[in-house]
C-alpha cells in the first residue's frame, strides 16, 4: 500500500505536514500534430523528468491551439472545492491568457503524466501553485519570443496582454493562436519570470467557476452518470460488521425478479481500500437491482467486531483519558507547574464517528476485459484505484485506465476505492461493463469514519491568569489502524498537533489513551483538526473564564507566551485572524439577553482560521445568527472560491457540532439515511461573513481548515449566551 503517499498527503501527523521545498521543475514543450503549442511539466511524483522532445507523449497541461483556444488540464480531482478553476486560473494568469478562451478539462488518472493526483490534505494549491505559474509564464515568454521573431525585433520591445503579444514600438498585435505553432519552436526558457502581485489578472480576484453553466443545465457528468453500450446495473448489500463474512445466502427470490441476471458474492478484499465484502445483484437498471438486493436472504458471521457499541466505547474512551495513559511528547515539568498553580482547570471533551455522506453516494462504472480494464469513477485518488485494482486483478496498475469523473462531494470518502473494487469484481464475473451505485443506506453503513474520540485536558494558571502547565490526553482509533489493525491506540505522531500547537505553554505533556479500532477509520474533511480544534478552542474559553479575562485577551496572551522562534509566524498569523474575526463580530459588545458570541482560532493544513459565532439560545433552541470567519491562507487564488469554502465549512461544522453522529450497535452502524443522520438544512443557515487577510505568503489550502474552529466557537457562544457549557459534540445527538 502506498503509505508514503498518504503520509505526504494527509499523514497521520494530522493537519500540519512538513513541506517539501524542492522547487525544481522541468518543462517540456512540443508542437502539436494539429498545430499549436503544448506545454507539459513535471510535478513531484512523476515517473521521469521531462525533457525537450518533439515526440514525447506529453502530459500537456496546456494546449494552445492555432485558433487561440486554450485547453488546460486539471490534474487534481474536482469534488466541489473548485480546484479545477483555481489552478488553471494560475496558469492562465501567468500566461496572460484570456479566461474566456480557456477551457478546463479533467485529466484522466495517470501518475506518470500528471504526477501525484491524490487530492486531499488541502494540499493542491500548496504544492502546485508555483509549478502551474511557471508553466504559464514559460508559455507567455515563448509566445513573446515568437512574436519578436516575426517582427524581427528584440523581446524587450514586446509584451503580452490578454491573449495577444503587442509590439511596443508600433502597437502591432499578434494573437496567441497565430503565434502558437511558432512558439513551439523557440527555446524553452530556463527560469520563467513570474508576475508580481500587482500584475495579477485572475489570481486573488473573485473568479467565476469554469463549469457552472453545465451544472445549472444538468449536463455536468458525475461518477453516477456514466452510460456505456451494454452496461449492466448493480446494487449491493455489505457485511454489516467490519471483519465479518458471509455465512449463508439464498438468492432464489432475488433471481426471480424480472430483469435480474446475476447475484454475485464479493468476499472481503483485505487491503485498506478493498471491499469489506458483500453480495451484489446485477440487473437491467439500478432500481431493479436495488429491489432485488432486498430480496436476498443473507446471513452474516459478524466476527470479533460484533462487540462494538459506541455508547459504551465512548464511556471507555473517557475513562481511558481520565487516568494516566501512554506518553507521546513532553516538554518542561508539568507536575511542578501543577504543584505551583494558583488555579487548576480540567475538562473532558468527546466527539462521535462521522460519515462523510456526500450527496453523491459511492458510484463507478468498471469494465474488465481480458486485456484491459477501464474505470469511470468519482474519486479523489485515481492512483489508488490503479493500485487496488491492479492488485486485485493481478495486472500492472498502469494497465488500469481511470477516467476521473467529477465527484458529487467527497470530503475524504472518495479517497478510498472499495466501491470501485466491487464494480471490478462484478464486471470481471459478468464480462460486461457494470455500474454500481451504492444506496444511501449502504453508503452510510459502510464507511471509513471520522474517529470517535475523547480528550481530557488539565491546565494550571498562575496568579496573573497565565497558563503554566498543560496535560492533554486523547484516545481515538486512528487512521493508522486501517493500515496496521494491531494498533491499540493512536500513534505518537497523531498527537503532533498537541505538541505543536502555537499556544505558548512551557510545560506540556501529551498522552495517548487506549482505543483499538472496531471499524474502518478514514480522513474526513479537516481530519483530526476537528477534535483538536474543539478541545483547544473550548478549553481556552474555559481557562479565560477561570483567569477572569475575556477570551480574546486570553488567547492573545497565550499566543504571546510562545517564545519558540520557529513558531513566531504561526503566532503572528493566529493573532491576526483572531483580531479580524473579533473586530467584525463585535465580540465584547452588549447583546440582548439570551444571545452570545463565542470565538475560536485554529491553525491546520498550514492555514489559519478564526471564527466568531453569534447565537441566540432559548432553552434547547440554539439559533446561530452570524458567523464571522477570518482566514489567512497566504496569497488567495480565487477570493470567491475561498469564501465558498468557508461557507461550506460553516455548514459542515454546524452539522457535526449539532447533529451528525454515526453510532454502532453490536458492530453494525445504526444510522441509515438523512432522517437519522440529519445534516444542516437551509432553514438553519446563519449569515456567514468571510474576511480574508491580505497576505503575500505562500498560498495554502482551504478545503479543510475552516471546519475546525466552528464547533469550539459555537460551544463558547452558547456558554456566553446561557451559561451552559457543552463539551460533547454533537450537542443534539438524535439517539441520545
Amino acid at each position: 500500500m502506498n503509505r508514503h503517499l498518504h503520509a505526504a498527503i494527509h499523514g497521520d501527523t494530522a493537519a500540519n505536514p512538513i513541506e517539501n521545498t524542492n522547487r525544481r521543475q522541468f518543462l517540456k514543450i512540443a508542437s502539436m500534430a494539429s498545430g499549436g503549442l503544448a506545454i507539459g511539466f513535471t510535478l513531484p511524483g512523476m515517473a521521469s523528468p521531462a525533457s525537450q522532445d518533439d515526440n514525447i507523449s506529453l502530459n500537456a497541461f496546456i494546449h494552445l491551439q492555432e485558433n487561440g483556444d486554450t485547453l488546460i488540464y486539471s490534474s487534481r480531482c474536482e469534488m466541489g472545492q473548485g480546484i479545477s478553476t483555481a489552478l488553471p486560473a494560475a496558469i492562465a494568469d501567468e500566461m496572460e491568457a484570456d479566461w474566456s478562451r480557456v477551457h478546463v478539462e479533467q485529466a484522466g488518472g495517470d501518475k506518470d503524466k500528471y504526477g501525484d493526483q491524490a487530492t486531499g490534505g488541502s494540499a493542491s494549491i500548496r504544492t502546485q501553485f508555483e509549478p502551474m505559474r511557471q508553466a504559464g509564464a514559460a508559455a507567455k515568454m515563448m509566445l513573446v519570443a515568437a512574436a519578436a521573431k516575426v517582427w524581427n525585433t528584440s523581446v524587450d520591445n514586446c509584451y503580452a496582454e490578454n491573449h495577444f503579444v503587442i509590439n511596443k514600438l508600433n502597437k502591432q498585435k499578434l494573437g496567441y493562436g497565430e503565434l502558437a505553432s511558432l512558439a513551439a519552436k523557440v527555446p524553452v526558457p530556463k527560469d520563467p519570470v513570474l508576475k508580481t502581485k500587482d500584475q495579477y489578472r485572475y489570481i486573488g480576484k473573485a473568479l467565476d467557476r469554469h463549469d457552472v453553466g453545465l451544472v445549472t443545465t444538468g449536463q455536468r457528468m458525475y461518477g453516477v452518470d456514466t452510460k456505456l453500450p451494454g452496461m449492466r446495473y448493480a446494487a449491493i448489500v455489505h457485511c454489516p460488521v467490519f471483519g465479518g463474512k458471509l455465512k449463508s445466502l439464498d438468492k432464489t427470490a432475488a433471481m426471480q425478479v424480472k430483469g435480474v441476471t446475476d447475484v454475485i458474492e464479493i468476499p472481503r478484499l483485505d487491503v485498506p481500500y478493498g471491499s469489506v465484502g458483500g453480495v451484489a445483484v446485477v440487473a437491467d437498471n439500478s432500481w431493479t437491482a436495488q429491489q432485488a438486493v432486498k430480496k436476498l436472504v443473507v446471513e452474516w458471521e459478524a466476527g470479533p467486531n460484533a462487540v462494538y457499541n459506541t455508547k459504551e466505547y465512548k464511556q471507555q474512551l473517557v475513562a481511558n483519558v481520565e487516568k494516566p495513559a501512554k506518553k507521546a511528547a513532553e516538554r518542561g515539568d508539568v507536575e511542578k507547574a501543577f504543584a505551583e498553580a494558583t488555579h487548576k482547570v480540567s475538562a473532558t471533551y468527546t466527539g462521535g464517528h462521522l460519515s462523510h455522506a456526500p450527496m453523491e453516494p459511492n458510484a463507478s462504472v468498471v469494465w474488465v476485459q481480458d486485456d484491459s480494464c477501464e474505470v469511470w469513477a468519482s474519486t479523489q485518488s485515481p492512483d489508488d484505484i490503479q493500485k487496488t485494482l491492479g492488485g486485485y486483478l493481478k495486472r500492472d496498475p498502469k494497465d488500469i485506465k481511470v477516467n476521473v469523473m467529477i465527484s458529487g462531494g467527497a470530503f475524504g470518502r472518495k479517497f478510498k476505492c472499495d466501491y470501485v473494487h466491487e464494480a471490478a469484481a462484478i464486471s470481471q464475473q459478468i464480462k460486461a461493463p457494470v455500474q454500481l451505485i451504492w444506496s444511501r443506506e449502504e453508503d452510510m453503513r459502510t464507511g471509513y469514519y471520522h474517529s470517535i474520540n475523547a480528550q481530557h485536558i488539565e491546565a494550571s494558571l498562575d496568579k496573573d491568569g497565565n497558563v503554566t502547565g498543560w496535560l492533554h490526553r486523547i484516545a481515538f482509533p486512528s487512521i493508522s489502524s486501517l493500515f496496521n489493525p494491531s494498533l491499540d491506540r493512536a500513534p505518537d505522531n497523531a498527537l503532533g498537533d498537541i505538541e505543536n500547537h502555537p499556544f505558548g505553554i512551557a510545560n506540556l505533556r501529551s498522552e495517548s489513551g487506549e482505543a483499538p479500532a472496531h471499524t474502518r477509520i478514514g480522513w474526513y474533511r479537516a481530519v483530526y483538526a476537528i477534535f483538536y480544534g474543539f478541545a483547544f478552542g473550548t478549553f481556552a474559553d474555559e481557562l479565560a473564564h477561570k483567569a477572569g479575562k475575556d477570551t480574546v485577551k486570553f488567547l492573545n496572551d497565550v499566543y504571546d507566551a510562545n517564545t519558540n522562534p520557529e513558531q513566531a509566524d504561526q503566532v503572528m498569523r493566529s493573532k491576526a485572524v483572531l483580531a479580524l474575526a473579533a473586530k467584525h463580530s463585535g465580540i465584547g459588545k452588549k447583546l440582548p439577553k439570551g444571545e452570545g458570541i463565542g470565538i475560536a482560532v485554529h491553525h491546520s493544513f498550514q492555514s489559519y482560521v478564526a471564527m466568531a459565532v453569534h447565537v441566540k439560545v432559548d432553552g434547547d433552541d440554539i439559533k446561530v445568527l452570524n458567523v464571522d470567519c477570518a482566514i489567512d491562507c497566504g496569497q488567495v487564488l480565487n477570493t470567491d472560491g475561498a469564501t465558498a469554502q468557508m461557507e461550506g465549512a460553516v455548514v459542515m461544522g454546524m452539522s457535526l457540532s449539532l447533529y451528525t453522529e454515526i453510532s454502532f450497535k453490536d458492530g453494525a452502524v445504526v444510522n441509515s439515511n438523512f432522517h437519522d443522520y440529519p445534516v444542516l438544512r437551509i432553514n438553519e443557515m446563519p449569515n456567514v461573513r468571510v474576511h480574508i487577510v491580505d497576505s503575500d505568503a505562500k498560498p495554502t489550502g482551504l478545503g479543510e481548515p475552516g471546519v475546525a474552529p466552528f464547533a469550539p466557537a459555537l460551544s463558547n457562544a452558547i456558554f456566553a449566551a446561557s451559561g451552559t457549557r457543552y463539551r460533547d459534540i454533537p450537542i443534539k445527538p438524535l439517539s441520545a
Partner: protein
Amino acid sequence: MANTVVINSKEYAIDVADDMPLLWFLRDRLEFTGTKFGCGSGLCGACTVHMDGTAIRACVMPISAVAGKSITTIEGLSENGDHPLQKAWVENNVPQCGYCQAGQIMNAASLLATNTSPSDDDIDAAMQGNICRCGTYQRIKKAIKSAAFELAKEV
C-alpha cells in the same frame, strides 16, 4: 389511462414496471442524467423535477403515477439554460460540487411559480427538503431572491 408520459415536451411510452420510480425511468431508461439520486427516500431533494409545474421527488414517485402527466427536468427547464434561476445561479457562483443543484433549482423554480417575491421564511420553508452537503445555502437564498427580482422586472 394513457401509458405515456410527457418529459420536457416530448412524449415517451412507459415501458417499465409500474412501480419503478420516475427517477430511474429518467436516469436508466431515458438516460436523462441531470436528475440525481441522493437518498431514494424523499429526504434530500436531489431528484426534484416538476410534474405539471409543481416540484415532486422523482425517487418516490412511481412511474405509473405520472402516466398522462407532463414532467419537466433540469434539462428542460429552459431552452438555453437561461431561466432566471439558472442565470442567478451562475451569477452568484452557487454550486460547489453541483450535485444537489439540479434539485435545488427545480425546487426553487416551483416556489417562484407560485410566490414571485418569497421572503426568507418562505425560502426556508420551501427549500428545507433540499440538502446541500457542500453548504451552498447562503448563495441559494441570494440567487433565489435575485431571480425573483429579475422575474418581477419581466412582468
